[in-house]
């Protein structure tokens, strides 16, 4: 009698919550990956029945929150440094780290002018917006690109730094800076003539690593999400949303 009732209850729960025994996970995600993460959610939830909730923030801030015990099960950073550090400090599960996306850098002028490779050399904007190279990988890549193009001297004094690429994008979009380096993920849906995709050879790769946090070690939903992130469906979405794909599991470079 009791058993029967219990079984009914289980059945009810199963019906309510989808195909498998669905779990629920909270994932900390770097701001630049916002759109892609949302696009991934639908596919992930449909496929696994798990539910995933994101907290978006700057990588450094998210890391600080995690180190203070914030309730995240996984961490999708904008760089490799913070996930590595999380592993070293025991905040993340050793061996769980992998590169989920490679950032692609573009030169962008806010749909006011076509932008090409030569735009930087031919026009001389007063202000060139970049993400803060000290804190944001896209910013560092932007500096490396300028150096590789031999334009670092020219622009050194004209750089304005946003905290992250999102802010660099705002500076350009509001017209306060004429040009700037932002992420392809921010502009991939705009006209291809509006931006110039910087060849990956001009800067060190912008590898974005994900890691399973200690807190999420036993969370099936979290593990499922990280697995899903490496699968073909997710890779297709990530690629469509303005990222290059990592070549192999384990990170493009452990710098």
């Amino acid at each position, binding site marked *: 009698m009791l058993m029967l009732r219990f079984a009914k209850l289980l059945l009810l729960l199963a019906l309510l919550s989808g195909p498998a025994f669905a779990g629920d996970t909270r994932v900390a995600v770097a701001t630049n990956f916002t759109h892609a993460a949302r696009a991934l959610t639908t596919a992930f939830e449909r496929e696994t029945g798990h539910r995933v909730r994101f907290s978006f923030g700057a990588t450094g801030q998210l890391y600080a929150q995690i180190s203070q015990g914030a309730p995240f099960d996984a961490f999708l950073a904008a760089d490799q440094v913070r996930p590595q550090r999380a592993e070293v400090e025991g905040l993340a599960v050793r061996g769980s780290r992998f590169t989920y996306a490679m950032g692609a850098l573009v030169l962008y002028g806010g749909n006011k002018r076509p932008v090409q490779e030569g735009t930087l050399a031919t026009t001389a904007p*007063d*202000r060139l917006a970049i993400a803060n190279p000290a804190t944001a990988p896209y910013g560092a890549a932007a500096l490396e690109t300028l150096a590789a193009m031999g334009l670092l001297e020219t622009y050194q004094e004209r750089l304005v730094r946003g905290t992250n690429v999102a802010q660099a994008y705002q500076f350009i979009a*509001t*017209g*306060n800076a*004429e040009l700037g380096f932002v992420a392809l993920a921010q502009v991939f849906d705009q006209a291809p003539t509006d931006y110039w995709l910087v060849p990956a050879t001009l800067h060190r790769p912008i590898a974005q690593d994900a890691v399973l946090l200690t807190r999420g070690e036993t969370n099936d939903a979290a593990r499922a999400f990280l697995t899903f992130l490496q699968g073909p469906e997710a890779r297709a979405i990530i690629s469509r949303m303005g990222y290059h794909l990592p070549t192999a599991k384990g990170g493009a470079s452990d710098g």
Partner: protein
Amino acid sequence: MDDLNIWSPILLTAKLASVTTLILMVIGTPIAWWLARSGSRFREAVAAVVALPLVLPPTVLGFYLLMALGPDGPGGMIASLYGARSLAFTFEGLVIGSVIYSLPFVVQPIRNAFEAIGDRPLEVAATLGASPWDRFWSVAVPLARPGFLTGAVLGFSHTVGEFGVVLMIGGNILGETRVLSVAIYDYVETLNWAPAHMLAAGLLVFSFLVIFTVMTLEKRWRFKREDRP
């Protein structure tokens, strides 16, 4: 390395806060006076606008400022007068942002102080031959002195502590827009904890001293009222 120059942000911040406070006293005083004494039905609406920065997230304010300072806004028009494109990423732009952001912190205490004076001292001055302008300077301003002190100190320290707006319109340029709070943020972000500690602890001590000084001085500066015999 530029990034480790801790004196530049300190001096820049002091300069920004001083200039901002000066401007705030000049424009905040007439606003506070009007808010305290006007019978206009728009009074509370204006008061609400002045108070907006208290409740708006700095990012909202920063975003609108970014648009206003840019080439399509009034800031860009001003900038174009001297051949620039935008007031963003300039010291002047930061001053404009700080003035707006700290306005309620200056206007509110001065308004309260003006209101606390009441009609009587001004009426007395009028019957003694003082014109409205004369009454304002010889009676209202001296009697509102504690409010001016509070307003100036709050305006100054709020500008020192301002972060969100500066981050959004500053562009983090050493010597021009990299103020103390942004520098601290960068040091924390880049795990440069030694200079971060130095600046943060300095700011903490500074803030304590400011609040302590205001509280002490305000008590001393408050005029004793006549009491009934």
